[in-house]
C-alpha cells in the first residue's frame, strides 16, 4: 500500500509519470544576463562593502527615485502652493472691497453727513459698524486680524464705516462735499 511518504516522493522520483508536461518542459535556465555581468559583479560588491556610507547614500537616493511617490508628492505640493496663492490673492481683493472705518471724531464732516443720513431715514444706525475697542490712532494700534480692522489701519481718520452686509451704503468724498455745499458749511469744506 502506498503511504503518504511514498506519494510525496513520487514527485521527486517519478516526475515523468505524475507530471509529463512539466517533465518535458525541462529545467534549463530561461533567463539571461547583460554581457560580462558576472565578471564585474564581485568588484562592484567589494567596492560597496569598503565604502558603506557612499553605498547608503546612493541606495537612499535610488530608493527615493524608485519609490513611485516622488511625482505624486511633487504634484501635491505644487497644487497646495497654487491653492494658497489663489486664496491669498482673493483675500486681498476682498479686503480692498471692504468698506471704510468710522472714527469717533466729533468734528469731522463725515460724521455730520452720516448723522444727516440717519436723521433723514436714508441710513439705519444699526448699519454703522463699531470700531474695535481701544483703537484711537488708526495708524498704530490696529492689528489687522480682520478685514475691517485692516482697513482702519490703512485709511485716514476722516473716513466712514459701512456695514458690509447686503444693505450697503457707499459714501464717497463727493457725497460729503455735496452735503457740505448744500448746507453752506463752507468752513467745514475748507477744513475737509
Amino acid at each position: 500500500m502506498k503511504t503518504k511518504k511514498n506519494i510525496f516522493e513520487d514527485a521527486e522520483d517519478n516526475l515523468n509519470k505524475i507530471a509529463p508536461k512539466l517533465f518535458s518542459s525541462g529545467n534549463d535556465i530561461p533567463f539571461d544576463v547583460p554581457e560580462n555581468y558576472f565578471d564585474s559583479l564581485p568588484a562592484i560588491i567589494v567596492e560597496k562593502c569598503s565604502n558603506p556610507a557612499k553605498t547608503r547614500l546612493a541606495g537612499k537616493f535610488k530608493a527615493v527615485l524608485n519609490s513611485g511617490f516622488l511625482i505624486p508628492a511633487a504634484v501635491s505640493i505644487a497644487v497646495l502652493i497654487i491653492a494658497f496663492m489663489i486664496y491669498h490673492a482673493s483675500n486681498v481683493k476682498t479686503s480692498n472691497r471692504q468698506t471704510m472705518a468710522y472714527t469717533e471724531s466729533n468734528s469731522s464732516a463725515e460724521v455730520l453727513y452720516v448723522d444727516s443720513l440717519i436723521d433723514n431715514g436714508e441710513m439705519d444706525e444699526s448699519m454703522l459698524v463699531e470700531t474695535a475697542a481701544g483703537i484711537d490712532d488708526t495708524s498704530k494700534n490696529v492689528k489687522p486680524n480682520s478685514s475691517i480692522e485692516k482697513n482702519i489701519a490703512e485709511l485716514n481718520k476722516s473716513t466712514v464705516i459701512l456695514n458690509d452686509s447686503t444693505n450697503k451704503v457707499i459714501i464717497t468724498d463727493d457725497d460729503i462735499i455735496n452735503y457740505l455745499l448744500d448746507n453752506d458749511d463752507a468752513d467745514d469744506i475748507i477744513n475737509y
Partner: protein
Amino acid sequence: MEHYSDKELLELFHKGDNRNYAFNLLIQKYQKQVYWHIRRIIIDHDDTNDVTQNTFIKVFHNLEKFREDSQLFTWLYRIATNESLNFLKQKRTKFFLPLADVEHQLANSLQSDHYFKGDAIQKKLQMAILKLPEKQRIVFNMKYFEGIKYEDMSKILDTSVGALKASYHIAVKKIEKILTDN
C-alpha cells in the same frame, strides 16, 4: 581562477590582511548560484541585481559571526532567500498591493523581460510557477531547477523535510494542471 574550499576562504577572510581579496573569491564562487536563486523569485534582472548585491554586502558584514556549524552555502542561500522575500514584502507595502498583485506584476515583468531567452513552453512554465504561493514557489524552484536536497532546503527555509516534500508534490501537481488546462 583558483578554487578554494569554504574553509580556506573563511580562514583567508578571518586573517584580515586580504579580507577584500578573500571576499572577492567567495563572491566569484557563489555569485551565479545566489543570483539565479534570487532571479527565480524576483524575475526582473535589475531588481535581482540589487538584491544580490545586498545579500553579499550582508554576508560581508556578518561573516565574522558565521558559526561554521552549517555549510557556507546554506547560510548564503538563507540570507538570499530572506532578502528576496523582504524585497517582495517591501514592494507590497510600498504600493499597498495585495498579495496577488505582486505576483501579477512579476508575471507582467516576465512578459516584457528583455533577458528572457526561453521558448513559449518555458514561458508557460514560468507563468505557471508564478501562480504558486510564495514559499511553495521557492521550494519548487530549489528542487526542480537547482536540485537542492531536502535536508539542505530544510536548513535554508527552516521547515521540516516532510513539509518540504509535501509542498513540492503539491506544487508539481498544480503546475501540471495549469500546463494541461492551457
